């Protein structure tokens, strides 16, 4: 779950990392009032997307009136597909140097990774590619946390002014503590700036909360940006189903993330367009009835493809659920099955008895038939 800048920065402030004074405004009047209180300011679009600067979503304002003009322009924008509804109005900070700092979950070392660069302001990928010598990559044993002495020693070799090393190490230790405390997947400050009077201030902050940690960070998660969902996707979410709406006409119901992705790929491979991603694997395999109703409530669906390969998900339970929904809705749609794995004998017998249908032995044949029928 992503957090907008204004929702992420308080986590830094609480950890003892300085952020510029500022407030959120939803309209021109509010923006002007905040600027009136804090003076020369920056007006920043609040959207869960990068590249705000390039899109013109960050503007400097010297006066309250200028802040109003900037806010009016930014509030009329759409950035990365997100309509801007709020701006953050923050005090300007005199910049002497820009750094990059982050802590993230690293699949390669299978632990937290502290990243720091004395060349800030750039995207980290760009930094890693163009100026690797400025980049500190410090894997951390999560059981013990980072050792400040090691951070200081490693920072010393990066071309950072000697007098900056202890202060930067201090920020990294605090950043790591915030990362741990809030179950971050990523906590990033870009840029971390050195001010003219020698302070370190976080000008921007990106925070991604680990989705698997949401249950134990419920209060924090309320401040995150909810994922943009279509009506059907929201219905799926409410039912505890992973449903993603796509543009095509072949309705898809499968079990397990891998098999469902594969089914969609195969529909596309054979010249069709999938109408949705919907998997009922894992513990959701008992939800086949509501799942099928969801697929069929999309009016674009012209044929239905049911592809089960049961491991933990028992195919007889899923097939029973599909047949139950079929009985209730009696849809006028061609439907094609492929069923293998746990419970397949019972599932296939049920399909024959209740729909008079034979499943396809090969998944690809079921896919081709469903694609053909949707034309």
């Amino acid at each position: 779950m992503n957090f907008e800048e204004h929702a992420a920065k308080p986590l830094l402030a609480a950890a003892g990392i300085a952020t510029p004074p500022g407030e959120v405004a939803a309209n021109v009047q509010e923006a002007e009032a905040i600027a009136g209180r804090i003076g020369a300011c920056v007006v920043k679009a609040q959207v869960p997307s990068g590249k705000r600067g390039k899109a013109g979503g960050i503007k400097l304002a010297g006066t309250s009136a200028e802040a109003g003009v900037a806010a009016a322009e930014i509030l009329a924008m759409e950035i990365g597909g997100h309509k801007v509804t709020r701006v953050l109005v923050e005090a300007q900070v005199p910049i002497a140097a820009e750094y990059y700092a982050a802590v993230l979950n690293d699949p390669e070392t299978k632990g937290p990774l502290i990243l720091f660069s004395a060349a800030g302001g750039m995207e980290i990928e760009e930094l890693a590619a163009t100026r690797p010598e400025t980049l500190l990559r410090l894997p951390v044993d999560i059981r013990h946390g980072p050792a400040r002495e090691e951070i200081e020693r490693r920072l010393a070799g990066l071309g950072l002014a000697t007098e900056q090393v202890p202060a930067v190490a201090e920020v990294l230790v605090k950043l790591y503590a915030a990362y741990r405390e809030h179950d971050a997947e990523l906590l990033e400050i870009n840029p971390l700036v050195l001010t003219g009077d020698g302070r370190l201030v976080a000008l921007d902050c990106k925070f991604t909360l680990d989705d698997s940690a949401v249950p134990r960070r419920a209060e924090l998660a309320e401040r995150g940006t909810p994922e943009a969902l279509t009506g059907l996707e929201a219905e799926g979410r409410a039912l505890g189903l992973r449903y993603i709406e796509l543009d095509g006409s072949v309705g898809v119901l499968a079990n397990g993330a891998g098999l469902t992705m594969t089914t969609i790929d195969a529909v596309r491979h054979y010249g069709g367009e999938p109408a949705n991603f919907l998997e009922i694997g894992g513990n959701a395999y008992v939800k086949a009835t509501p799942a099928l109703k969801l697929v069929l409530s999309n009016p674009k669906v012209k044929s239905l493809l049911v592809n089960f390969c049961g491991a933990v998900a028992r195919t007889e339970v899923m097939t029973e659920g599909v047949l139950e929904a079929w009985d209730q809705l009696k849809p006028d749609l061609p439907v094609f099955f492929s069923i293998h794995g746990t419970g397949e004998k019972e599932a296939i017998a049920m399909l024959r008895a209740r729909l008079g249908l034979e499943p396809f032995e090969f998944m690809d044949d079921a896919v081709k038939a469903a694609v053909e029928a949707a034309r």
Partner: protein
Amino acid sequence: MIVRGHETLLVQGITGRQGSFWTERMQAYGTKVVGGVNPKKAGIEHCGLPVYGSAVEAAQAGRIDASVLFIPPPGVKGAALDAIEAGIKKLVILTEHVPVQDVMFLLAAATEAGARVLGPNTAGAVTPGECFVGFMPAFNARIFRPGRVGVVSRSGSLGTLVCLDVVRAGYGVSAFVGIGGDPILGTTTLEALRELDADPNTDAVVIVGEIGGAMEEAAADYAKDMDKPIVAFIAGAAAPPGKRMGHAGAIVLGDKGTFAAKRDALEAAGATVVATPTEIAPALKAKMG
């Protein structure tokens, strides 16, 4: 992590619905299950096995080679640390939605203790004809006939279909290693591939990957120097970017984790990358004769 028939297995969370159901199936298949754990039900017998208060306690009663966790997300870290403390060297974590920082914590402890972890969010591992650990339909002989093709898969359901395809083509499976769908895993594609490369019972490997992360790319780097033929299928070619496709790890972010990057890396390493699982069998035939 290949599982072996001679290894003794502990089931943490044995008394739950899933734990009971799959323990019985593992026993019936030949897996040497020697006991279970439930701190609240220590001393009872379940599935004909002794139930202990902890893995440490279970290990005092006899040697345990591996443990499988049927444990809800909040309890996984504690249960895994218990197994590690008990000296168990193979852990299979089936649970989905374990907080990632908990995963990293238990993996650090496992590494220090010399223990290996499969998962989290895996359906487990099968060595046909010997044993299985987790919730795989190993007992379905149409899908898991013993043979000489090793399969490593991020997905349980798709991995099962791939084993079916391998067997339908007249081959058999030497070992199925389900590594899991999470972004941070105890056993990566590369680590499973290395083990299958070293396995004398395996002549060829099928890699079943997904979009997201860079595990397939890392495996491709190793595959360059392998003699055993490799066929790969990567799920998610048609997935919209920025969407998590059912697995926490299956997401394309910007230009990272794309289908094209994985396909290109594997093809450059000499692997055959097929467009649908059905094409795996002919590709194996072309490579193995």
